[in-house]
């Protein structure tokens, strides 16, 4: 490994899978460092990101979605939105991609030992927090934590990332999994059509009053209402949420209504980034550089940031 933080380390693509379709498809890419030394030096913790390099195209900051318990590879879930992410989507097994990092702070997972964990993701927002549940659910770590609840929603079933593993978890006794898809928008507005089979709607006006049929894990609703309906207890619990800013806003409001303190709620902030190492200037919120001081913040810290994000 070079001690130049701008120099990417070469990694080989060892797996590619399509995670979500639509106009902004998501692909999961699994890569392994080519040099043993790079592999040993790269010590990531949940919450960290890495910068992926496509030669001649540029670089993108991407969350490391695999947990540190995976020693032999790193996984990234990439939404195709522009130049670099399109190039990343064209990668095939055997191709070479550059990786630098790991960057950013981390979820303070060690402080959460002995607590119940609620993980709430929306859309591509599951990527940065997937590493947490896969870390906690790993047999070596599972005993250190209490009950684990996963809640996740996307526009359609096809847009749910990581569905293969989530559907497997759904069938197991541990963790508790709840999934949702958005209301369908027909020509006459919302709820024009019936909910998709197997994904019954809930009462959107009063989600909290909805009675969940035993065994039911799939719903048609938005993620904030899923939270309102499932009603996770704040008692000795940490909630982690990530998704589009508007989803985070309502999810957090609903967690507060359920009695969660701001310091019990964690999220990740994203700003446009280039260098990833606190030099290029663009990711700041006030005096905070999100690339090094973040991306993980608890909600108390989020409220202390200047209102410019």
């Amino acid at each position: 490994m070079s001690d130049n933080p701008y120099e990417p380390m070469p990694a080989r693509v060892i797996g590619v899978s399509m995670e979500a379709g639509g106009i902004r498809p998501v692909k999961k890419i699994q890569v392994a460092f080519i040099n043993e030394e790079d592999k040993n030096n790269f010590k990531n913790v949940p919450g960290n990101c890495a910068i992926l390099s496509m030669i001649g195209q540029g670089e993108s900051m991407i969350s490391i979605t695999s947990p540190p318990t995976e020693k032999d590879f790193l996984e990234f879930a990439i939404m195709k939105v522009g130049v670099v992410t399109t190039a990343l989507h064209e990668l095939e097994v055997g191709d070479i991609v550059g990786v630098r990092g790991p960057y950013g702070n981390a979820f303070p997972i060690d402080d959460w030992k002995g607590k119940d964990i609620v993980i709430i993701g929306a859309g591509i927002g599951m990527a940065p927090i997937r590493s947490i549940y896969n870390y906690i659910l790993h047999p070596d770590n599972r005993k250190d934590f209490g009950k684990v609840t996963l809640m996740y929603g996307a526009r359609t079933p096809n847009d749910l990332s990581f569905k293969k593993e989530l559907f497997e978890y759904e069938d197991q006794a541990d963790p508790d999994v709840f999934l949702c898809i958005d209301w369908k928008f027909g020509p006459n507005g919302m709820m024009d059509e019936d909910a998709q089979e197997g994904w019954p709607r809930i009462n959107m006006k009063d989600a909290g009053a909805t009675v969940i049929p035993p065994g039911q894990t799939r719903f048609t609703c938005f993620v904030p209402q899923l939270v309102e309906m499932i009603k996770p207890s704040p008692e000795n619990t940490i909630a982690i949420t990530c998704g589009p800013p508007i989803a985070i806003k309502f999810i957090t409001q609903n967690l507060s209504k359920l009695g969660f303190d701001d310091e019990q709620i964690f999220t990740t902030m994203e700003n446009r980034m280039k260098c990833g190492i606190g030099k290029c200037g663009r990711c700041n919120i006030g005096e905070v550089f999100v690339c090094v001081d973040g991306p993980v913040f608890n909600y108390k810290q989020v409220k202390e940031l200047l209102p410019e994000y």
Partner: protein
Amino acid sequence: MTTYKISKDKMNELLTSIKGYDVYVPTEMGDKFQFRVMKDAGDAKLGYSQSAKPPKDVIFPQNEVLMNYKIQPNGFDVENSLDHIGKFVIFGIRNCDARALKYLDTQMLNGKYVDPYYAKRRENTTVVGLACNSPLYNCFCRSVGAGPHHKEGHDVHLTELDDGYLVEVITDKGKELLANSMSLLAGSSDADTSKQAELKQACEAKFVRKIDVKGNDKRMLDIFESDYWRDVSDGCIGCGICTLLCPTCFCFDIQDIGSRKEGQRVRVWDSCQYPEYTMHASSHNPRPGKKERQRQRFFHKYVYSYKNNQMLGCVGCGRCINQCPTQIDIIDVIEGVKNVKEGSE
């Protein structure tokens, strides 16, 4: 520190005696001044007022190839430009621009990561300062912690006297630079030093404009969301000149040039005044308008930098005022904060 004197007619000889460095000197370009690599000692115009562009680009070039690279079957071939960085002298830099280098150090060298390109160029650069005997109208270095004869960040400091230059050798780097030129230097007298003090005082008396920064950061935070920032940025056309010509601005972009098999990674100056600078891939922009973008400029310089590094991000050179096509004036803006009626008190 050792003090010498050199007569004016020997200055060109001194410049020529510097070997093994690219020597940047203030040169004339039309009605402006510009730091350029000296080809002939006669190019150096040490009587200059201020260079249009600060000489920070010696250490932080506007375009800098970081690396050339090629994909190979088992990785990349990287040719790092770090290995080809030469040695530089910035000869005749003003106090404001030299202090700006100290500020850039806080950004590029402090924190969890060191920027290796900046570090290497900085290490390889010797700074020869030139005291200012006559400020421009919009100069206000005295309001932001310095002054026309300030020596912070200088390896050698020159003061123009009537019959020569006072040469103060401040650091070992400065000593090394002048090692071959010692025969050109003579001792200085007490009269020279008192003349220097006199010039300093006379220059200080010529300053017209000033800022009172005390308590301003707190006041600015109080009115972060005020329409004041919209009003003061009203005329801005987003050209970015105020940042591109600012000696302390460091924002950059990293771009790739080339094909998917081989390419060049280049760092280029960027500006917080451009909408794309902060635009997310989702097209959400945390700084959607000129109000937010100009506010970022003022806050970065007068609030955030001070919070993070106890140093203002403005050295008072006045370039952003002199060169803004729509006359946005940072002194008026920062001073005006005191008169904004809103905010919690």
